[in-house]
């Protein structure tokens, strides 16, 4: 049996066809079908005019932000294997990562630097959109989504700050929650809600952990999907 035959047979199986619904026929229709029928590919348009790809339109800042988000997702999940959000253990687990766990320090440093870089990238991305006027209709909704994503990025960064449970963490959260407290009317209640009490203790650590690892990433992921979808729907990144 030749390789060509084998390939033909494989591609003809029910299993193959149930996953890949289109063959490699290089036609416009088939290309479009391939993209549309794939959850990952369909974020991209089927066709992009070449002038849309100019570097200075975007400076790749949105893509960089998303790339960093993926890095953070992967390293964050790995870190979750080692980290326990409890008061005597949290700080010790930092030390274990630093001194004992294989590549623990590398992992943690990757997460930390990627987090800093993501804040910078997202901010620059917003600045680029602002200065190139890309918030104008029909992209006004996506601008709003983007702003929410920026806030989510900052919140992710902020909630992650407490998790090492060192002095820097403690005081950063002290300052942050005191600022929240200064908000009129709901300030004190909001601070109480955020900390799960009046002081930064075990409850605060668990809340920040859940926000950091579950609530905020899910929200960000959902809004990212919306954000990318709207980029396509609003005509890509070309100047209006």
């Amino acid at each position, binding site marked *: 049996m030749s390789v060509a035959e084998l390939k033909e047979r494989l591609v003809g199986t029910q299993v193959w066809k149930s996953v890949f619904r289109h063959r490699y026929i290089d036609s416009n229709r088939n290309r479009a079908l391939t993209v549309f029928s794939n959850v990952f590919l369909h974020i991209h348009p089927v066709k992009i005019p*070449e*002038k849309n*790809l*100019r*570097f*200075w339109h975007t400076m790749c800042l949105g893509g960089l932000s998303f790339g960093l988000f993926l890095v953070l997702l992967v390293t964050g999940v790995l870190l979750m294997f080692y980290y326990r959000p409890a008061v*005597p253990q949290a700080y*010790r687990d930092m*030390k*274990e990562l*630093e*001194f*004992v766990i*294989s*590549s*623990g*320090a*590398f992992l943690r440093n990757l997460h930390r630097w990627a987090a800093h870089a993501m804040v910078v990238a997202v901010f620059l991305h917003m600045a680029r959109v602002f200065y190139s006027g890309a918030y104008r209709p029909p992209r006004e909704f996506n601008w709003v989504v983007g702003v929410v994503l920026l806030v989510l990025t900052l919140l992710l960064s902020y909630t992650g700050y407490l998790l090492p449970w*060192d*002095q820097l963490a403690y005081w950063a959260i002290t300052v942050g929650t005191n600022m929240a407290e200064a908000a009129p009317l709901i300030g004190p209640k909001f601070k109480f809600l955020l900390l799960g009490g009046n002081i930064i203790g075990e409850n605060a650590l668990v809340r920040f952990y859940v926000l950091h690892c579950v609530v905020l990433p899910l929200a960000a992921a959902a809004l990212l999907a919306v954000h990318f979808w709207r980029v396509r729907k609003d005509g890509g990144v070309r100047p209006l």
Partner: protein
Amino acid sequence: MSDSNSPMRRMPLLFCLASAALLVVYAVAPMRDYFREWRRFQKDYNRLADEKLRQNMPVRPGPIGIRQIWIRELDVVDRCVTCHLGVENRFLRGAPQPFGFHPVTPHNTRDIGCTICHRGQGAATTVHGAHGRLKWWEDPMLPGRYLQASCGQCHKGSEVPEAWLLNDGRTLIQAAGCIGCHKIPGYERRDPIGPVLDGIGSKVRGLWLFRWLKDPKSYLERTFMPNFQLSDEQARLLTAFLLAQKFAAVEVSETTDHSLADQGQIRYREARCISCHAQGGRGGTFGPDLGKVGGKVRFGWLESWLRNPKALFPRTRMPQFSFPDKDIRAVVAYMASEFADPSIDGREDEQLVRSLPPATRENLAAGRKLYQRLGCGGCHRLKGVEEPVELGPDLAGIGNKDVDRLDFGNLPVDRNLWSWLFTKIQTPRAFGKTLKMPDFHFSEEQGREIVVALLSLTDKRFPARYLASEQQAGPFRPQGEFGRLMAKYECLSCHRIQREGGKIAPDLSIIGSQAKPQWIASYFRLPYSLRPILTERMPLLGMSGQEIQTAVGYFQTVLLDDSIPQQLFPRDRPEAQEIARGKELYFNRYGCQACHQVNVAGGYVGPALDGVGSRLFSGYIFAYLKNPQRFKPAVPEPNYNLNDSDAAALAAYLVSLPPAKGTEGR
């Protein structure tokens, strides 16, 4: 692509470079992670172990891997043993670090780990990180000279025989009156630390007081009164205020009858004042040095004092001597002539007193205010001035205070806790001119001891079973007649009874089982030294016959150890053959004559043993010979592990010894 200058054109190149860089990172990071310092140390150790094995020493190489001591109860994870691999192997005594053997201590590393004592970062596996000399690690390793501080974390109240610096430091803190101003856990302020100042104006001369306030050490080198660095004006104000505090009952006289001096000298000697009071640095250190006391006190006061010290200062440790009035005047006359202070001149004194601010109400109020502001009341008590609040900071937790919370000013001092404490104690106002702490002029050694004691005051908490518990015996406070007697003669100033009292004279807790009543009575009447090489110290108190009877009776009924029989032999008379066997053992088997004298022959490390049978009970001699350290932990007498029959024979020989010639009357 249309635009040839677009960075998009260079994208593939950039992508290639970035990928290559990423690859390098992914290669280097795990390598760095793998080749850590500790791996190199373990390899070196295994090489050393191989070498030692070749020399037939039981030092085994081990597998490469992180080692740790984990004690859940103490929350200790100490990985120090990852590199310090030889701590438990005495064949590695003196091996190059980090492989050296840990000196033997009362505690095992397996039980308490490393960082409980040494501090540092137990979780770390790098040299720099573990030793804790990092910017943000709050608990760096203690230098060896302060290490004894760690004992004090669990041994909170009790003395630690192995930590002499800690013990001395604690004693110093108590003696120097740090608790006058600071709240310090474990120290209680019961009695005033310094003298009570009521009536001070009747006691001392103005010039002396002025100079004392300016610089106490210039008069008495070993005083704990600190130097407050007063200006002349402040010192004058305070002198005037204190001189105004007079005793109504004391005659302010500065004259004395010098013709009585010779007779006074005899009384002074007989009473063995020098046992407690030095003269120009020579003599006892228990009371103040009297070398220049003639320039300090007024003689009228001295007379009242010698008559009954407790009437002037109820808490004094000075015993009351039962001198007749004539003798008291004689002693004062002797002291006035013998202990004159040439630097205190009567005219100068008058001049100074005239220059003091007049004792108006305003001036006295100002003086009182200064007295309070300086915190004199922390150590002294003065009627009419309310008890002070603690002026200084609470020292709880000072032992591991964050270095970032200390103000170093701009002094070139190492930025660590112990350097700060040491500097603070040596020069209390070094970190700022407005600081209030006075200068104690501690020696460098004293400073280090105090730092050790302070560093033991950490806020770390340990489970109860790790804390050294002290047997809580109530303080020894005899009541009734004997209690009054003991207070009058201040026995516990020097002697110790049941953990209470001084340490400079023998412990009397079981004196009733040790010494025979007749001998004790004769000793009270005329004390002498039991050891030829020691100075005579027990003062001749002049006790009445009734008082002696009371004391001896109390000894024989209360201060006993029931496990010691009084009489070892029937009617306290051993048989002749037993005595002979004992003599043989004494001279030939055990060589007791090397240290003890019998009939003026033998060594003089221990006391002479002539007539020891009339002094001590045979039962006590027996028990003492069996285990001398049971009664006197530090005694040089060797413990020969005698069996009962040898000990009894020796006791028999000893009680048979007649008193030395010429001392039968004692």
